[in-house]
């Protein structure tokens, strides 16, 4: 099998996953063609800063959805955790890390609260989080006394607006940023190589060496190009580091850990999971606790980026996060979905919003387009499933 045939075989077998990558690439190319500024260093940095909190929410959300639940409260939790942190930092004058800690604790408590009702009382997540949506929004107003609090300033502000740069000097671009990206690419290549060697040791089929190298080179080229763009602007955004760490950790947890596999088992068939020794209630509980904590991380990032806590913050974030998961191939009935897919789904939403903003498309039209994309993405998914079923 030569390289091209191998690639085609890989793509057709993984149409479900590759379809979303192709759609994403097509979108990027489309907007780049329509607007030269789209791929500028400034704008790429902007996309990351602007949508990081949605992506963070989507990480937790995809786990909730895979478990067969849904969480509508995350937008309100973003507001509440930001508000608590603002009260601690701005009103009480405590250091930034106390604010961060307070927000995380609130997120944890929210998660425990919702997890308790879902897992141990047996109320569907839809209802619990619908109640939570109102509850936490109301608490946000109470905590903030109906007014916005600003500015955070200082280190707290840097969380979502700061950059790592200049540590190794610059030559028209930031060397440090490029070094970090280089390390990341090398790490990726090494882990892929080790996984390939592992498969060979177990006598499994692997892609040809040529295809493997091609894949690594392609990924490395795209990533390094992206890194170079960032380095010519302001360097490495702190948020990107937070995001990257979260994605890697959660991709590993969902795909490789027993806990992650149990989430899929519960979402795929709750009864079968129970009879296989999976503690279904415990899984549901921790999935919601995790969602609460990740929502608080998003709350910290969002309040930092806004440099303020507003009572109405995070409105409709839950819908963006949920849409990201479904565009990324998660199943509405649970059991199917991946962190990577949700990230691409989130990026598709981000790129569309950003691209249309650059082109001056009015807000109303943007909403129409986003709605249609969500619908078509799920329609594609269903068509694809039917195709797979009839191909037996």
């Amino acid at each position, binding site marked *: 099998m030569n390289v091209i045939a191998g690639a085609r075989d890989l793509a057709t077998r993984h149409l479900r996953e590759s379809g979303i990558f192709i759609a994403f690439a097509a979108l990027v190319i489309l907007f780049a063609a329509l607007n030269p500024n789209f791929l500028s260093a400034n704008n790429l940095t902007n996309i990351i800063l602007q949508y990081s909190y949605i992506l963070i929410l989507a990480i937790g959300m995809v786990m909730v959805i895979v478990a067969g639940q849904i969480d509508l409260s995350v937008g309100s939790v973003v507001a509440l955790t930001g508000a608590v942190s603002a009260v601690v930092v701005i009103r009480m004058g405590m250091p930034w890390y106390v604010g961060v800690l307070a927000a995380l604790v609130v997120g944890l408590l929210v998660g425990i609260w919702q997890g308790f009702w879902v897992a141990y009382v047996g109320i569907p997540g839809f209802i619990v989080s619908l109640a939570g949506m109102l509850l936490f929004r109301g608490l946000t107003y109470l905590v903030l006394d109906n007014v916005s609090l600003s500015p955070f300033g200082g280190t707290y502000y840097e969380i979502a607006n700061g950059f790592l740069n200049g540590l190794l000097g610059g030559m028209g671009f930031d060397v440090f940023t490029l070094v970090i990206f280089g390390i990341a690419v090398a790490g990726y290549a090494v882990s892929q190589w080790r996984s390939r060697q592992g498969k060979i040791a177990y006598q499994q089929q692997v892609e040809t060496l040529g295809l493997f190298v091609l894949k690594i080179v392609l990924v490395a080229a795209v990533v390094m190009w992206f890194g170079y763009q960032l380095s010519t602007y302001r360097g490495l955004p702190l948020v990107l580091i937070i995001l990257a760490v979260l994605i890697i950790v959660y991709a590993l947890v969902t795909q*490789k850990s027993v806990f992650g596999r149990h989430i899929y088992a519960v979402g795929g068939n709750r009864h079968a999971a129970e009879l*296989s020794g999976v503690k279904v209630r415990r899984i549901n509980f921790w999935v919601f606790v995790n969602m609460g904590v990740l929502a608080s991380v998003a709350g910290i990032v969002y309040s930092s980026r806004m440099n303020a806590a507003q009572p109405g913050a995070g409105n409709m974030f839950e819908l963006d996060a949920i849409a990201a998961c479904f565009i990324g191939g998660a199943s509405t009935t649970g*059991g199917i979905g991946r962190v990577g897919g949700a990230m691409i789904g989130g990026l598709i939403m981000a790129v569309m919003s950003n691209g249309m903003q650059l082109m001056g498309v009015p807000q109303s039209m943007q909403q129409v387009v986003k709605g249609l994309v969500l619908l078509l993405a799920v329609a594609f998914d269903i068509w694809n499933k039917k195709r797979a079923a009839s191909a037996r």
Partner: protein
Amino acid sequence: MSTILEMRSITKEFPGVKALSGVDLDVGEQEIHAICGENGAGKSTLMKVLSGVYPHGSYDGEIVFEGETVRFGSINDSEDQGIVIIHQELALVPYLSVAENIFLGNEKRGPLGLIDWNDANHRAAELLERVGLHENPMTPVQQLGVGKQQLIEIAKALSKKVRLLILDEPTAALNDTDSAHLLDLLRALRDEGITCIIISHKLNEIADIADRTTIIRDGETIETIDMSEPDSTQDRIIRGMVGRDLENRYPHRTPEIGEEVLRIENWSVDHPTQAGRQVISDASFNVRAGEVVGIAGLMGAGRTELAMSVFGHSYGRNIRGTVYKDGRAVQVRDVSEAIRHKIAYATEDRKRYGLNLLDDIRHNISSAGLRQLAPGGWVNANEELKVAEEYRESLNVKTPHVLANVGKLSGGNQQKVVLSKWLYTDPDVLILDEPTRGIDVGAKYEIYTIINKMVAAGKAVIVISSELPELLGICDRVYTLAFGRITGELPVAEATQERLMELMTLERDQPLPTKESIS
């Protein structure tokens, strides 16, 4: 006898698979025609071609119905001609009433487009009378048992002026009484002029009811047997289905029985929602290493409830009694504790309780023993694949790859995946609940062989089954269960179907026979 249906050299191909190659089927007017074949032989595909699920043009060949060549584009077309198919998985809406279900999709509307429910209920009552079901047509379907639901499906077919009724495994989920009633009904319908095609794995049933039997193997018609001929034996049907002689339906085993592995004493379980209703009363039984013990009971006797309550209190509440594992009293309060004590339970309902149908074979096999693959909490994916491949090979799961979706396998192969999953937990005791339900003859033999291998490896096996010949064929000892009580215990040498049936039907208030009177 004139012919009502003729299917001539039907060929149906899926990408890469030829499901049917030149199948011929002749069905006579007013006959009950059985179709036999192993799972995957092409029976369901043939029926889907006939009923228009696969529309004309997607297959080759010709269908002649009542003397005319027909070309169905959808199920509606075939139903218009009077061909109605009743699928194995019943298609009733649980929350709707009997009458609403009967006329669902076929509602008779009045001048304003509204339904006259008095008229509908009246007509439903007439149809129920015809199928011999004495229920109020306004009863929600979920309150009725499977046997009655099956009759409602037939009533639904009758409401459509059915000429040819196709039943796919109609008695698979029914107990003996309900099955007998259903078969009587089919005979009565035949005498009224309705032709039936019945797909079944129960050969004694076919011998009992069919006028003719067509055998399909690997997408081809093998032969059509007139069941009134003297040599139309079950053995001949089996030979046709599997393409070879099965010297014996049960593989031979020389029992080597060791120490007691599991003993349950004075086990009582209450119904999970109805307070005070005892489902299992004071049951005691045991199983030894290398022994196959059967639990015989009619549907509703509490077989599954007994097994599941032992398996980590998965059923019921207010559970009393003691579990002894290797002679020591142990606690099995949840499933993971049961697995730790090396007890395994393979459910009777694979699709609902046994498998994650969304996932692949590999993940299903590892799902109960995942901890072994993940010493530090992280799953070794390569080892997992290797384990799955090993079980695929040793249990002969027929699949191109263990990464294939488990939902696409046939019943027999799904059951092998369930057994693989439990074997991977390395149990000492396996409780197998209806291990061969809905599985064809060839695969049944394979499952029995697997059971023999398990006990040969020193494991203890408990088999719950409603098929008495099966229990007599594979067990060393049989307990009978009736109304939640263990009513008897017989070594297989002393057990007969009649004796077992007597004990299985012992009423709640009848005294238990003493040990002496049993043997």
